[in-house]
């Protein structure tokens, strides 16, 4: 068709701006052609689907006990085997996603909001404000993340949401530091000055130029910390601060199996391996984004 048009010597159509969909496709397609990246995206999508609609992925009830088949090794009916009460482990893991993923989203969301806000404020305002914010961040950085989270959970109570808040607060400093450094770098670039001279207000410059260009490393950090948040929540649940039984959560599943590590290793091992796969996928996605930016 285009060939025909060219041959007929028609004047090319007037240039039009590409639609939003065309621009998004052009950016995403080369990424999806990487097999590792596609696999990682599939795994993450699976855990997200499990969090939203677990009943689509399994026909068992996560809470139905069946003492007759307790501690069965993985087979075709029970893909991940069963636990000490005969509950299907695969089902419990799928249902556990909702709490784990919710906790991770909450944690990263808190860290992003708090970290971006503090980072932009301190990079943009500079001077005294910058100094005060950065000293507070220094103090937070000096405390080990899990210890800080433990202290916060002890203060505000047990449960998945408090654990998520605790983990989120624990990773704010990293976000604030990264954002501030990027804002400081981008703020002095010639195109920001050009935008200002073109009459753009500070708000517009911040939203259209500084934030999108400072966003890259922060987004990578967020994907990376998503995995870290899942691990930290699982860790805190393992210690008994998270979801109360019989609610399933990845950390509590792994914790439950520790009594049967010798006789029934799959109870801890398979949910643990799934957790590793998800975290690994997130790290891989983060790394791919980082490579693409370069």
């Amino acid at each position: 068709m285009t060939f025909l048009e060219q041959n007929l010597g028609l004047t090319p159509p007037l240039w039009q701006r590409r639609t939003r969909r065309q621009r998004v496709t052009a950016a995403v397609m080369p990424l999806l052609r990487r097999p590792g990246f596609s696999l990682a995206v599939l795994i993450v999508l699976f855990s997200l689907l499990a969090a939203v609609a677990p009943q689509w992925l399994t026909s068992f009830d996560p809470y139905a006990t069946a003492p007759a088949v307790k501690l069965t090794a993985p087979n075709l009916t029970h893909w991940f085997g069963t636990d000490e009460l005969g509950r299907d482990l695969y089902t419990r893991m799928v249902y556990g996603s909702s709490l784990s993923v919710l906790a991770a989203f909450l944690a990263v969301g808190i860290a992003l909001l708090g970290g971006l806000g503090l980072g932009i404020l301190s990079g943009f305002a500079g001077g005294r404000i910058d100094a005060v914010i950065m000293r507070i961040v220094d103090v937070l950085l000096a405390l080990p993340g899990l210890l800080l989270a433990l202290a916060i959970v002890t203060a505000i109570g047990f449960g998945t949401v408090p654990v998520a808040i605790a983990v989120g607060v624990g990773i704010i400093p990293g976000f604030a530091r990264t954002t501030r450094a990027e804002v400081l770098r981008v703020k002095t670039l010639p195109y920001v000055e050009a935008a200002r001279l073109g009459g753009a207000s500070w708000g517009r410059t911040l939203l259209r130029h500084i934030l999108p260009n400072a966003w890259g490393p922060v987004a990578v950090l967020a994907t990376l910390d998503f995995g870290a948040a899942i691990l930290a929540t699982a860790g805190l649940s393992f210690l008994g601060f998270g979801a109360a039984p019989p609610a399933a959560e990845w950390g509590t599943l792994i914790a439950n199996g520790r009594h049967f590590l010798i006789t029934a290793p799959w109870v801890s091992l398979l949910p643990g391996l799934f957790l590793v796969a998800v975290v690994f996928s997130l790290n891989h996605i983060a790394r791919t984004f980082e490579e693409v930016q370069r």
Partner: protein
Amino acid sequence: MNALVDVRQLSVSYRHGNLAVNQLSLTIAQGETLAIVGESGSGKSTLANAILGLLPGSATISAGELWVDGNNLTHARERQRRGLRGRTIGLVPQDPMVSLNPTLRIGQQIAEALILAKGKRYPGVDADIVELLQQVGIAKPVLRARQYPHELSGGMRQRVLIAIALAGNPRLIIADEPTSALDVTVQRKILNHLQRLVSERAISLLIITHDLGVALDRADRVLVMQQGQVVEQGAPRQILGAPQHDYTRALIAAAPAFATRRQPLARPAPTQPPILQLQNVGKTFALPKVKGEDATFVALEDLSLQVYPGQTLAIVGESGSGKSTALRIALGLEKPSRGRVWFEQQDVTDLSWRDFRPLRQRLQLVQQNPFAALDPRFTVFDSIVEPLVSFGLLKGPALEQAARELISRVHLPVSFLDRLPRELSGGQCQRVAIARALALKPDLLLLDEPVSALDVSVQAHILELLQELQRDMGIAYVLVSHDLSVVANFAHEVLVLRNGRVVEQGSVERIFSRPTSDYTRELIGAIPGQHAIASAA
């Protein structure tokens, strides 16, 4: 006589199928100075890297042979190549600002090269460092050896790099665009010095440059490269006097020093009042308090200038002369410490950002580095129309129409509107930046070294475009440049700045034909290519 470097039918290709060097042959004799001239992308740096054995992993020698000092290096091992680097071939890299390790003292970095050349640490190293620094013309060598790179100026750093290249007592020095990041006067001093050192020691010199003027001035033999191939080679006089190839002719025409100097732009008597006026403007910066040093730095002193509609005023000076500060004051980015700034009869000295904003539609800037001047995430369309969107002037189809008009004004195809800056060359980026500056239909454009980051031939095209825009739209320009040869055919009036003071001010014709100050004479003398013209004449 046996050639020191013998390249026979060499081809270097990159992994994505791009042939950077195509069947190229050249020889360099002992003690000879050879210059390779070409635009960026012509493969000249790839050739230098091949001789050094420093090709990136994605490039391979696909055909031909490469002999250095009797060794076949075509497929030599890294170990053999390393033996030659430093001791047989020295390199003076391109950018002195980033080529030194910022965490090591100057002396340590030279010592590293000396120790590598000798093979072991030896007692006389400190004396040798001082001697090398003296040889490359650095005053107070004992002090400098103890300093870090950031404490030295660009010219001094380039001298240190030359010292490092000399440390191994090499027989060939490759200088990859050795001075393109430096001011013209510094450039001349460094090249003079390098040339003297090389001839004293009978070292061969390979200069790689995009500036035909530099090549013709310095080399015994000039080799013109285009798209990986040698299009012409010969003695400078022959190249300049009787160029055989069209590309060489185009390069000669583009080099400001050889361009037939047009009748200097006659300056019509100003009929209208000046559009921009600076009155006795001065600027002092407060310095961090260090005992025994001045607390303030005077960047600009008592500067007065007028720009008339439709005319060009050029501000010329070295880095640190205050020319950028003058521009920033005119733009309202800095407040002057003294003096007044008038824009069209309106005193804008004390205007706040908000009050200045309406004036921004009349007054725009084109920046120095075209690659950094465009937001990497914005398509060309977004960049060009941004000022229109910021002021809320146009929307939807009208905006697209404006973008189409602007992009054709700067002679780029309309399809470029969808591209991102990284898909454009330097010259194309600068055209986009000019289009953005034109979007608001300004009456005055401030050009901050608009061509200094570009190849010579691209410079000529951009300057041509700017002149055409001035003719068509009657825009006034303030051009800031360190290069007098750029100014010669472009400006109506010239102002020479040095250390924040006005050295000379007058019409372009008078400055070039009857310069009154020594400094202006020195600047005119530093334009590369004059030596070649003189010897050809």
